[in-house]
């Protein structure tokens, strides 16, 4: 008879520590690394993290703009930025870390308690949140001492930032657990996706707008002059903590500080202790293979019908383009990973034109408006450009082999389908929204004509990501995404936007706008045809 397996010696590290190391490694490598060979996987976790932290440190240097300002103004700025960046990070990462479908098969049958697993994950989330928060606030610690705070500021700011990181992480985890408890598995994923997208978009947009709002108030944001609404904003609670100990020490600051401590304690207790027992059930139900049928019919009919009625049906006569259009549209509407990358990715594009419009409008001269409107129009060319670039990446990139196996000579038709979906579902709504904003701000519908230069340039911009056959949707692993490439194209579009807007504004004021439109249309048509011909000639490269 075989002897029982040997018992492991006591020197083996505790399972919590092993799990924490595992989740940290998995998180830093990203799940997109699955399916890649070792050569393609990220080489140095440390390098990747160090680069991210360096960017955050640079971003935090904006705190020096608050030099010699009240502690509360600076602390509000710092905590608002920290709150947004952490909110965005935790919202986009927590779902994958906390409720990973594949994980149940790997870990649930191991001798590890669910609470140990949850704690290991929470520790990883909090740990990374603290690194990020530390990087954002590094410059702020110095600036805070110089801007009216004293030597106490760095100490209390570190404390308030730790509290804020705990609060952010706790809130997101609490939302997940409550969703699981109240709505069940079927609606959990949809709700989580929606929450993640909304939080991320809000964080990006407000992260762009808030600093400009603070600058609009000439940097002066004083707790004594603030209204009741300041008590509703979580970053202000943590700023109150800083102000109470290292700033004005007004009763309002102490009240805000009290709110910070009470809310953080409550959220942390609920998320990490009270509701932690339901975590195992959550993981198990998430992994159930038998599930109720998802109500997809309405949505499916909507996409199918949309592509079947004119004018879209005329535009999608080619069956391959149509298939690619439907695939891209389905992913824009349904896929969590795509939604989390696309919508926060294009959200900032609304902000910059909006700021230009506001500045032109605020200064009350026609020159500002006649520059701001065409700039907004041309700048929206970034929407299809960015959208298509982001859509090339997918966790399910291996499925794109089906395109190569099909009798399609090259990627052109697939690129056209994806481009049309992006124009319909992303660019068109953004153009309408921007036109609405212009109309509401200026109340003059004739100014909308200044959008025409942007609309003419839009089809050309939308073709650029497909050049060389690169615009095949969902065909590249997520980890191969090159943010640098996107940055370059953004700079090019911004330069073109400035040039076109300048010329459009000048021609508008000098009465030769329509001649400019004619010239632009001719140039755009030549470019468009040229780019299409180039794309049609592209053949599949070997899928090695």
């Amino acid at each position, binding site marked *: 008879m075989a002897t029982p397996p040997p018992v492991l010696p006591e020197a083996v590290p505790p399972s919590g520590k092993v799990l924490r190391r595992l989740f940290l490694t998995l998180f830093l490598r990203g799940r997109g690394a699955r399916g890649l060979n070792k050569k393609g996987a990220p080489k140095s976790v440390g390098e990747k993290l160090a680069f991210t932290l360096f960017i955050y440190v640079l971003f935090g240097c904006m705190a020096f703009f608050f030099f010699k300002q009240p502690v509360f103004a600076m602390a509000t700025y710092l905590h608002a930025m920290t709150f947004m960046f952490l909110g965005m990070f935790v919202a986009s990462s927590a779902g994958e870390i906390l409720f990973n479908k594949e994980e149940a098969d790997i870990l649930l049958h191991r001798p590890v308690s669910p609470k140990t697993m949850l704690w290991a994950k929470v520790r990883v989330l909090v740990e990374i949140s603290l690194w990020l928060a530390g990087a954002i606030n590094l410059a702020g610690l110095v600036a805070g001492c110089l801007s009216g705070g004293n030597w106490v500021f760095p100490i209390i700011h570190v404390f308030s930032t730790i509290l804020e990181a705990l609060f952010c992480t706790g809130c997101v985890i609490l939302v997940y657990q409550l969703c699981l408890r109240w709505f069940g598995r079927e609606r959990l994923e949809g709700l989580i996706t929606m929450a993640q997208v909304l939080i991320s978009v809000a964080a990006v947009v407000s992260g762009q707008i808030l600093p400009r709002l603070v600058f609009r108030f000439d940097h002066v944001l004083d707790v004594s002059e603030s209204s009741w609404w300041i008590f509703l904003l979580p970053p202000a609670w943590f700023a109150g903590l800083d102000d109470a100990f290292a700033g004005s020490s007004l009763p309002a600051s102490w009240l805000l500080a009290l709110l910070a401590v009470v809310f953080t304690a409550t959220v942390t207790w609920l998320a990490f202790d009270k509701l932690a027992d339901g975590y195992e059930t959550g993981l198990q139900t998430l992994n159930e293979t038998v599930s109720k049928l998802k109500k997809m019919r309405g949505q499916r009919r909507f996409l199918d019908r949309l592509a079947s009625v004119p004018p879209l049906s005329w535009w999608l006569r080619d069956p391959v383009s149509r*298939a690619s259009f439907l695939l891209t549209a389905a992913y824009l509407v349904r896929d969590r990973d795509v939604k989390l990358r696309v919508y926060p990715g294009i959200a900032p594009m609304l902000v910059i034109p909006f700021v230009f419009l506001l500045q032109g409008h605020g200064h009350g001269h026609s020159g500002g408006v006649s520059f701001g409107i065409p700039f907004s129009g041309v700048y929206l060319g970034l929407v299809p450009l960015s959208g298509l670039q982001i859509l090339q990446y997918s966790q399910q990139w291996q499925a794109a082999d089906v395109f190569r196996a099909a009798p399609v000579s090259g990627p052109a038709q697939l690129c056209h389908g994806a481009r049309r979906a992006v124009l319909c579902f992303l660019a068109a709504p953004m153009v309408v929204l921007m036109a609405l904003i212009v109309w509401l701000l200026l109340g003059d519908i004739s100014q909308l004509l200044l959008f025409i230069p942007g609309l003419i340039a839009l089809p050309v911009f939308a073709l650029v990501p497909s050049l060389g056959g690169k615009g095949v949707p969902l065909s590249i692993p997520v980890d191969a995404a090159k943010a640098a490439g996107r940055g370059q194209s953004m700079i090019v579009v911004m330069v073109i936007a400035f040039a076109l807007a300048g010329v459009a504004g000048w021609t508008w004021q000098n009465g030769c706008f329509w001649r400019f439109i004619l010239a632009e249309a001719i140039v755009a048509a030549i470019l468009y045809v040229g780019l299409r011909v180039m794309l049609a000639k592209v053949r599949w490269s070997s899928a090695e």
Partner: protein
Amino acid sequence: MISVIQLTKRFGAQTAVDGLSFEIPPGQIVGFLGPNGAGKSTTLKMLTGMIEPSSGSANICGFDLQRDLIEVKRHVGFVPESGAVFESLTGLEYLEMVAALYRIPQNAARARIKQFISFFDLSFETLTDKLLGAYSKGMRRKVVITSALLHNPPVVFFDEPLDGLDANAAVGFKALIQTLAREGKTIVYSSHILDVVERVCHRVIIIDRGRLLLDGKPDELVAAHNSGTLEKLFTQLTGGAELERRAEDFAKTFRS
């Protein structure tokens, strides 16, 4: 139907497929065997036009792999080992998308899909309403097999097609490929499940390190090498004969 001459694929300094040559007539089911890393999947990907050969040539249904690539693709179906699908599409959406790539009209595609789902015991409701990400592995494999046969190709390449299928579905699938072969389709079947290959295939091609080791009818090969079963023949040829002794040695470590 398939003619392969000196097909070679190199990845840098490594040669994955090394001068492979064979011919397969219509209506034959050929087991394409080899140990892990032998070059089976690379060969299948070359023959389906997914990767470019470094040298050599292949002709499928009268079309040259390099000159008439699109026609080759139109005439072949492929079930890849990964079984990857776009998980955010429903089964029906995925299959209709594949049909569109082969330019099959939507109504014809829908009718063909219904035939397949009835064969595979899938409900149309599941196919319409559930995203592929929520399918079991077996259901997903059925969708992938359907997508490979949707355009009625005369040549079909299967790379581990039974992976994830339950016993009934596997039996049904084996019957299906035998029927397809009787109707004149050429089937290339790559698998590690050798007893299935022995029962289903008319002929086996065994490769190792990219080179052809054996090519012939399973029973004739087994008799010629006096190995008893295809599995034993395979292990003899690919250096696996020592495995039983090594397993015995390994088991001893549990007794100590």
